[in-house]
């Protein structure tokens, strides 16, 4: 027979990993406090957990979808601009903001600056172990270089990538967006964990 803790822990697995790391132990403590009143995990309690965890997962999915849409649009626009300019290379432009990564609902100069630092670091130190691991993970071709990285007001960071062909520019910009997003999330998570400790 399972203990209340084993039952509660099993249900926490329906939450996204990032949320479990942030709130898992606290949520578990609350569930176990409630279990003192009723050692079973009532169906309505489970339903509320499933609804909450579901909304967390949908939110996570939405962020990925938005980033994907922005990257595709940016790549298309960049390729179009490049061909109009008669350039020999293709240019892919993407804007990434903390809001797209789920960190600020309103424009945040502070988080944008954090994101800019991450992007610059990524562009400048592509040979760092972390960057290399991400590059391997996303299979980014090494022939492409990031030519411009700049902030767009306090809304986000603009990435531009030029490449001899449109497909590479598109792929690299998409990979960059993903990689920088992950680095930014890691940094925020680390900052959050450090703040909690």
């Amino acid at each position, binding site marked *: 027979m399972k203990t209340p803790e084993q039952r509660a822990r099993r249900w926490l697995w329906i939450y996204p990993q990032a949320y479990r790391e942030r709130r898992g132990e606290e949520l578990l403590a609350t569930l176990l406090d*409630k279990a003192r009143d009723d050692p079973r995990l009532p169906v309505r309690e489970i339903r509320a957990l499933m609804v909450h965890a579901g909304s967390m997962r949908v939110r996570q999915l939405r962020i990925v979808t938005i980033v994907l849409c922005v990257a595709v649009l940016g790549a298309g626009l960049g390729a179009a601009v490049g061909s109009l300019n008669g350039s020999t290379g293709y240019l892919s432009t993407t804007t990434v903001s903390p809001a797209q990564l789920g960190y600020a609902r309103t424009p945040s100069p502070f988080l944008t600056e954090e994101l800019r630092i991450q992007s610059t670091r990524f562009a400048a130190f592509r040979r760092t172990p972390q960057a290399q691991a991400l590059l391997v993970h996303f299979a980014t071709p090494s022939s492409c270089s990031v030519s411009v990285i700049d902030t767009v007001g306090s809304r986000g960071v603009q990435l531009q990538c030029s490449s001899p062909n449109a497909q590479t520019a598109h792929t690299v910009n998409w990979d960059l967006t993903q990689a920088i997003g992950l680095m930014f999330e890691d940094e925020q998570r680390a900052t959050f964990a450090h703040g909690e400790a």
Partner: protein
Amino acid sequence: VTELREPTYLAMVALAGEPLHGYGIIKEVQRLSRGRSDLKAGTLYALLDRLETDGLVQVDREEVVDGRLRRYYELTKEGTAVLADESLQRSATSREALRRLRIAGAAL
């Protein structure tokens, strides 16, 4: 914030007195609603996430009791202002309801 639903409002009222941890909020909401509202843990943390994101609630402190993490929450200044505004509105609506019921001859 355009609307505070009942569980959110009750949780904010619970936090108006003193910082509370998750289970403390649930018990206080039960008491405030005279047992009518049984806040589920999933519902509580969904509304705490929202209130934190909106800047109405913040973490006051953390404690480890019996090896379990307890995070205490408190209202922010903005949260206090929003709660005060909502309470005044609700109070005015209640007074008006009672006035109309008296006129209608309802036994109160």
